[in-house]
């Protein structure tokens, strides 16, 4: 499986009438996760998030591709 770089957000059972809604739902949840945290706490939350999601993806080839893209232009 290749790394999916197309829009892919959705929530089971939810009906969307506008293409922008699922991505905006996710982004809001992401920002909310960091609410009231200091920078260090936020960095720790982000690190845990990466680990959790990486395990969920599982496919190390896909993860290597994501890590490569993430490092570009830094």
């Amino acid at each position: 499986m290749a790394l999916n770089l197309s829009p892919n957000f959705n929530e089971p059972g939810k009906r969307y009438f506008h293409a922008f809604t699922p991505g905006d739902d996710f982004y809001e949840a992401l920002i909310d996760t960091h609410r009231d945290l200091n920078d260090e706490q936020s960095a720790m939350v982000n690190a845990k998030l990466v680990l959790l999601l990486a395990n969920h993806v599982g496919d190390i080839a896909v993860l290597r591709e994501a890590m490569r893209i993430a490092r570009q232009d830094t």
Partner: protein
Amino acid sequence: MLSTYQYPKYEYVRPPEQSGGGQQRYPVVVVGAGPVGLAAAIELAQSGVPVVVLDDDDTVSVGSRGVCYAKRALEVLDRIGVGQPCVDKGVSWNVGRTFFREQEVYNFNLLPQSDHKRPGMINLQQYYLEEFEVRRAKELPNLDLRFKNKVVSVNAQGAGATLQVETPDGIYTLETDWLVVADGARSGIRRMMNLDIDGKIFKDRFLIADVVMKADFPHERWFWFDPPFHPGQSVLLHRQSDSVYRIDFQLGWDADPEEEKKPEKVIPRIKAMLGDEREFELEWVSVYTFQCRRMNAFTHGHVLFVGDAAHQVSPFGARGANSGIQDTDNLCWKLKLVIEGKAPSSLLDSYSEERVFAADENLMNSTRSTDFITPKSKTSLMFRNATLSLAREHSFARALVNSGRLSVPAILTESSLNTPDSDVFGGDMVPGAPMDDAPMQAQGQDVWLLDNVGRRFMVLLYVKDPAHDSAELLKAFKTLASGPLAPELVLVSQKTGAAPQGIRVLEDRAGRFAERFDAKAGTAYLIRPDQHVAARWRALDTDKVAAALARATCNLP
């Protein structure tokens, strides 16, 4: 400053109460002759309800203020007879470019949706819209538009309200059965009634400059995140009519609004952005802050709040005037039925219920845009910039870039007026949805669906052949149509054919109606006067229509 626009000055006419006419009681008084108050007044007057409009000023909105009018608002404006002048005077834009620092991240082309009468959005200075509405209002003999009439007190008790109104001739008293409040974000009526409006203030300031470009400039929307000419902030450039461009600079909370408004401060900012060689002149400058908030309920007894008086959003996404115009779309038919005794006043609670739902959706979308455009923490900023960096190459990240979402009408899926589906349908025309448009033919002419439905309840029945007479069905429908709500039966068919006497036919030769409404032979849609779907079935059953009609008007036993 340069002016491309001559402000009309409307004549003050001494009201009948101050001309020896004595105190009068009116069915409806609208306070505020802005775009929303006028839309409400015109719609009511057109449908036969006499209206008095009170406004403390004698001209249109000063400065361009509202700029973007979206498709659904244009459809409502069409119904009140001002859609065409707005579209003729306004400018359509399709290309939007988003920049991050020095580089363009991506661009989009908002091509108009095919087979819809109106485009997704036009840009037009607010004063033009108001001028067209005033012109239309003056054509209506049952619409009494009173300039220089300022409401100084309101006593709302029981079945109506008593107002004290100040004019150049002094103060007079006026009574009304229903009061529609459209006096804007700082609503005087809301304050006089001690009603709260809750939400949050965004700690940021924005500078608006409307500039007249001397040379040709692309007809595009440009949005910058953190540009070199205005580091750390966002900037928006948007075209209006008469070669006027709206430029919106984010300034931050610590900016001094008085200082920032000075031309010697504004002009260098714009020069840095456009490059020195472009010639322009300033037309209008202001500094604003904004709030995202709404009233708990938009209905308070016989006082009905619409537009900014009831709810305010951030400007990102053009949801101010657009949602206010949709408020009037929702309110006016309900108020008319209540006034005529064809529905109980609880129908007006559904105005509040449905428009609070819509306001919450608007608040959510505009707050999300605001949070993306002006991140509030280091982590938010990091995610924002990461999204923008990835957006250049990856479509998933482009979908997350939020510089304002196009204002689209709320799909009222949760409304208590809907009859839930009992049959299976595909597509988006669910109960509560505002109808999609479609190109149709009627009596040999090309027409638009939305120009031919609404203003009253209708049943759209999709048939194979309009000439195929089902006498029993028509007889049953006639009984229903002779009731107080008098729904009209309209046949929709892909085929041309003579319908039985007195029944309208809309021909769907291109098949767009069938496609968008998932219609097959026998499919019936019950449509509200505001062109929202109330119910739908795979076969027409007049008992079911009668029940759905009762539900949609709070007439259920």
